[in-house]
């Protein structure tokens, strides 16, 4: 990524890109999200950290309606995600409409979820061609550019099974970027990787952050959060316990829970 890209971080601060207000979600009797408020500005990089079961992954998944919610609302770029409003009620949208609204939200999963029957290149162009109706030639051209950007120009014809975990995850990032997302969601992108492969994926993410992409990252990589995040959000038991710049949340945590967690993982 070239360094001359003007960071939009200073631009349009008026409407936040992500607005989650009072989000509640339960699985059976267990309430995983107990009223979460999260606002993310354009160009901001937010890292969600917290013990397992704290609801951070669920929160991330509600942001593009991979999970439904029971209360509250989520708006991306000022538009409700997954629901439409009728007076004081939110009605779930038809699947087709849900799809349209999340086209501009890229998701990177813990287990990559590349399509195993397609090559790296085919994985990347599948949605631009099939969903966006982009001409195949343009999509291929862009896919090659993206592969180069994630350092895998020579792997265009490889099937996922022929790639290492780190390479698969980088293809998955390229695949998400091919849809020109306004927002990228990362769900523990390095948790399923061998330790020596974590670095290459984090490097791609860092590069993406530097280019001004708005990112929400659920991660256990505290060092990455410290270096790359504009804001670190610590969650526990379905609520946001502490939120602020990394120097504060990681460097000088105010809350007892945060301190305990960081002591355990650092």
């Amino acid at each position, binding site marked *: 990524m070239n360094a001359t890209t003007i960071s939009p971080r200073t631009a349009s601060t008026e409407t936040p890109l992500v607005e989650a207000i009072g989000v509640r979600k339960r699985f059976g009797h267990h309430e995983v999200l107990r009223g979460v408020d999260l606002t993310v500005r354009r160009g901001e990089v937010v890292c969600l950290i917290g013990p397992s079961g704290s609801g951070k992954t669920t929160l991330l998944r509600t942001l*593009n309606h*991979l999970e439904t919610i029971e209360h509250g609302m989520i708006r991306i770029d000022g538009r409700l995600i997954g629901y439409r409003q009728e007076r004081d009620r939110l009605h779930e949208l038809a*699947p*087709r409409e*849900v*799809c*349209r609204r*999340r*086209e501009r*939200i*890229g*998701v990177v*999963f813990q*287990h990559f*979820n*590349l*399509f*195993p*029957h*397609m*090559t790296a290149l085919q994985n990347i162009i*599948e*949605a631009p061609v*099939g*969903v966006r109706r982009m001409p195949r030639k343009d999509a291929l051209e862009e896919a090659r550019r993206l592969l180069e950007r994630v350092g895998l120009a020579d792997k265009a014809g490889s*099937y*996922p*099974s*022929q790639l290492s975990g780190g390479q698969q995850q980088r293809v*998955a990032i390229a*695949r*998400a970027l091919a*849809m020109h997302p306004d927002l990228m969601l990362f769900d523990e992108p390095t948790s399923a990787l061998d330790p020596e492969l974590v670095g290459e994926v984090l490097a791609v993410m860092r590069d993406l952050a530097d280019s001004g992409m708005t990112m929400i990252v659920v991660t256990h990589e505290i060092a990455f959060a410290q270096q790359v995040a504009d804001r670190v959000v610590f969650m526990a038991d379905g609520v946001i316990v502490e939120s602020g710049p990394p120097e504060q949340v990681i460097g000088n945590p105010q809350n007892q829970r945060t301190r305990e967690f960081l002591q355990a993982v650092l």
Partner: protein
Amino acid sequence: MSARRGAEGVLIPEDSGISTLPRLDMPLSVPPADLTVVRRRAPWPWVLAAVAVAALGAFLYGMATNPALDWSETATYLFRPEVLKGLWVTIQLSVISTAAGIIIGLVIALWRMSTNRVLKTLALVYIALFRSVPVLVQLLIWGNIGLIIRNVSLGIPFTDIRFFSIPTNELVGPFTAAVLGLALAESAYIAEVIRAGILSVDAGQLEAASALGMTRGRTMRRIVLPQALRVMIPPLGNQFVTLIKGTSLVSVIAGGDLLTQVVNISATSYRVIEMLTVAVFWYLIIVSLATIGQYFLERRLSRGVKR
């Protein structure tokens, strides 16, 4: 406490749990790194193989020299026009019924997995019905469908308005009856094969597809089915082979298939065993071809899959 020396000369107490390991009882004349390892010999498979080969040989010899079997006579019937016509009907029945079975089976499988209770129940009833009734009985019913439904007509239900009307017997001849009977029975089994295939696809694939904005139909076509197909091919191949042989049942409704033809010939020539041998020969050939086809299909579909 008793102890012994292990391979490396380390003292191992007898109660350490390691004592069950084989010990090097005799002194070595070579360094341990140069020890030759000899694979365990299993003599019984060889003995069994020899017995089996001998038995097969004896059987084949008996067949070849059996005076009741006229082999040269059999050969002359192999390519008789009636036989080849019957063979062609058998192939058509197999291919058309399987194709129709897959299309109907896919619909039934999707209904079966639908969240719509009514469709789900309909699919369950359909599968139960067509799997419970023997195919032979189903074929007989379709062969005699004209007795139940005299005319097939298009009109407005519960009125006397008819746009056209055809006697069922003109519409459903033996071949159509055979296809209906086989395809519908087949579709019930194929629906379950397809369902199993679809369920075998990782849920993460669906999430990835929907996160990319793909609709459910598109996800099914582009992501789920291609992966499910790989799992479905072995059981589908099995179904196809079973169906090829199942087509012989249509001889009960004069379906004109291979068996119908050879039975007809044997009725006039009294060469029963020879004609059955002709049928055996052709069934063997087409099933072998189908099996080879399945092998290549499986290879093609396993692109990107590491074993």
